């Protein structure tokens, strides 16, 4: 679609106001920014807990299960998002019910994931539509998003963020210290299920932006980077949300000017930011360790 507008010779230069005006000149870009931002916010907040709970792979698998759902929905004549939500939410509820037992089940999760992709392949073939449908679901189609999609995404994203904030403290408690949380009356099993269902909604939204295969970039990468720089959960959540939004904005902006897919730019930014974060946080940790060591020695000396 961008090719249509390229004839207008988009402005790019040091005048940032004009750059922003240029980026928002067309409805498809406005929609992309609107949907991308709300998706990034929900991906960031839920991503923090995904990484903290060690569920990155499960989140990745959920998106693949969503691929079977989306292609299946098209096959029976409904919107892909409906199939995405039904499949990911059902699978999420099962995963949530398994709770801690889900950990270390890489083989089982991987097999379900592979089979889901296989099912999606079958549904795509049965539909006899163009491969564009599958490509769109696999890699995202943020520039093709309609104002109606934006409205749906906005509601889903808003609900996701609100739900996570509503269970923030008990979810953190159950994540960090499940046994004490349970004794304190926190409904850990119900929270585990609720969390996975909310994650399923967030994954289904994010599929629109980066697609099934690239979901790691929006849900896991910002949170993983945030957790390298702060040891305060509240700051970690905020930083993950900010990073997810920045990655999305940067990816969309670059893709506006260059004739390459937005998913490529978002994943590239996420990947290199993570590498940079590892290098930087390693340096920070070494400096901190240098500061801490004298105290340790002092402590050892004073002990009887």
């Amino acid at each position, binding site marked *: 679609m961008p090719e249509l507008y390229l004839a207008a010779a988009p402005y790019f230069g040091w005048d940032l106001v004009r750059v922003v005006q240029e980026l928002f000149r067309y409805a498809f870009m406005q929609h992309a920014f609107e949907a991308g931002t709300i998706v990034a916010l929900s991906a960031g907040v839920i991503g923090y807990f995904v990484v903290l709970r060690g569920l990155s792979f499960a989140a990745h698998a959920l998106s693949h299960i969503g691929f079977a759902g989306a292609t299946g929905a098209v096959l029976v004549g409904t919107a892909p998002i409906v199939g995405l939500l039904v499949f990911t939410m059902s699978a999420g509820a099962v995963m949530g019910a398994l709770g801690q037992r889900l950990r270390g089940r890489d083989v089982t999760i991987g097999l379900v994931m592979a089979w889901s992709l296989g099912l999606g392949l079958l549904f795509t073939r049965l539909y006899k539509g163009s491969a564009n449908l599958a490509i769109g679901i696999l890699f995202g189609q943020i520039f093709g998003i309609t104002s109606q999609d934006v409205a749906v995404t906005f509601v889903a994203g808003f609900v996701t963020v609100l739900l996570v904030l509503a*269970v923030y403290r008990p979810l953190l*408690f159950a994540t960090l*210290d499940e046994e*004490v949380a349970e004794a*304190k009356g926190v409904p850990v099993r119900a929270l585990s299920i609720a969390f996975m269902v909310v994650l399923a909604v967030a994954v289904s939204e994010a599929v629109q932006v980066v697609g099934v295969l690239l979901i790691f970039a929006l849900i896991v990468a910002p949170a993983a980077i945030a957790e390298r720089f702060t*040891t305060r959960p509240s700051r970690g959540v905020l930083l993950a949300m900010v990073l997810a939004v920045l990655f999305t904005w940067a990816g969309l902006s670059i893709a506006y000017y260059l004739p390459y897919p937005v998913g490529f730019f978002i994943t590239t930014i996420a990947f290199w930011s993570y590498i940079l974060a590892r290098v930087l946080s390693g340096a920070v940790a070494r400096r901190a360790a240098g500061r801490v060591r004298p105290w340790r020695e002092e402590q050892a000396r004073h002990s009887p």
Partner: protein
Amino acid sequence: MARSISPAIVADGLAAAYRDRLIWRDATFTVNTGEFVAVLGPNGSGKSTLLRLLLGLLPPAAGSLEVLGKRPHRGNADVGYVPQRRNIDRDLPVRGRDFVHLGIDGDRWGVAVGNAAGNHQRVDQAIQSVQAQAYADRPIGRLSGGEQQRLLLAQALAGKPQMLLLDEPLASLDLRNQIVIAELVAELAGANGLTVLLIAHDINPLLPVVDRVLYVAHGGVAIGKPAEVITTEQLSRLYDAPIEVLHDSHGHMFVVGLEAESAHHDA
């Protein structure tokens, strides 16, 4: 106050079971308010199960149980709990202070709004009471076992409980730290009038601080002063097997014959 005259724990004919597997039965004992009780016994004898009953996480299979004058129930703010510690991930990006904070409001819905300053003060107090100020702001996974144990104790104390249930807080600590932590728990319990049940493997670091011993073994429970319970006759009767208790010149007690018994019991 009522709690000073009423006992902290009353068990009468109590039995514990997981589904239809009986763990122990016929436990009748009373723990008084402010008492420090060590819970001893071989692996798999049902020590942690007793704590689960007291926390209301497991209903009694038979008999009755009262904790602080009420039937045990989940979410009892008067009971502080430190579970047996699995390893905390070294890279867990969370400070010890955040763990302590969860002891105050971790069970409330939503995000923290209002009264933030008051809660921070309570967190500071709890951290000071276990003398963990120096490392409370570092990632908890990077701390030593003793340091983690202090912060987890602070988490339990931050909820201002009347009773502490501690599951093997001395495990994986060196002998010196075992004594230090045992004394710290006793000191805090004395200062705050807390009743303490502490599960341990070795009675010796606890001998200076403990009031009574609750022995869980071979499907039964016995309670009494250490010198009364940890005897050749008592333990042999409890285990229904020849057990010998030896004493060294410092008054330390050594139970001999348990290893074979617990191995047989687990098999």
